[in-house]
């Protein structure tokens, strides 16, 4: 079904169309949330929130982008909101081990995130990479993950993040530079 037809059906509260949309886009939304949140339960919750938001606010969709682009944007927003909320909760936690010094060295926390979709032989390295990704600024993290885990072109990432393609190129360059620095720090501490 084409986008226009789907949007019309969703606005008319057609449950069958909505069910098909959920079935079709759930893997993309879940994978996006999973990369950002690095926790399967949180990603499940965020995915639910995304589709509820789609159902409730479809009347606000102006059709100036693809429906999937709009839904990706909601997924990114919801995931980043959840990250901010968790950080706020942590700030008030009484017990918080000091893990990071002021030079921005690699945080070596107890748990690593093993993405279920990563190839078996890459699981350990990918877990280290995800730990480094987690320390990137939100916009660099988002651009990098949308490109690497969702295989989206820069043009679509630019639409999702509402910035120019050159801004995405710049974010990717900075993300890779920061990741190299963090991985180098990890290597110095653990792999030598």
């Amino acid at each position, binding site marked *: 079904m084409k986008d226009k037809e789907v949007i019309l059906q969703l606005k008319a509260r057609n449950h069958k169309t909505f069910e098909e949309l959920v079935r079709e886009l759930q893997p993309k939304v879940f994978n996006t949330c999973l990369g950002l949140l690095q926790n399967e339960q949180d990603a499940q919750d965020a995915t639910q929130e995304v589709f509820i938001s789609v159902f409730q606010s479809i009347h606000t969709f102006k059709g100036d982008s693809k429906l999937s682009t709009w839904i990706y944007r909601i997924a990114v927003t919801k995931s980043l909101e959840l990250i901010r909320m968790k950080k706020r909760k942590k700030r008030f936690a009484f017990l918080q081990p000091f893990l990071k010094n002021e030079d921005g060295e690699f945080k070596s926390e107890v748990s690593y995130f093993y*993405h279920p979709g990563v190839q078996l032989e890459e699981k350990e390295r990918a877990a280290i*990479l995800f730990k480094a990704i987690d320390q990137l600024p939100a916009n660099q993290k988002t651009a990098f993950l949308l490109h690497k885990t969702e295989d989206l072109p820069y043009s679509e990432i630019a639409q999702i993040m509402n910035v120019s393609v050159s801004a995405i190129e710049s974010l990717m360059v900075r993300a890779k530079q920061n990741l190299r620095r963090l991985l180098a720090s990890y290597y110095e501490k653990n792999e030598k």
Partner: protein
Amino acid sequence: MEQKEQWINEALNSLNGIKRPEGNPYLHTRIMERLNSAKRQTVPARMIWITTCLLLCISILNIFTIHMLLPKKEQKNELYQLSSELIHKNSFNYN
């Protein structure tokens, strides 16, 4: 140095070929349950309490303000005396 760079490059490429995991097969059912329960929900009790407290505070403030603005008994008497004197003076001038 070369070994380090190679390790870093391999780490950066470790997400190549990543697959999308299967999501929750009951997602749609859960979403519809939540949407339907949101429809059935009445005004939450918390909202009622907050509104009641706000109305109470506004009422108390209003009563307090009116009480402060109303002239007191002594002030009323002074005003009455002053107005009587003025009337008396005016009537004296005409006479």
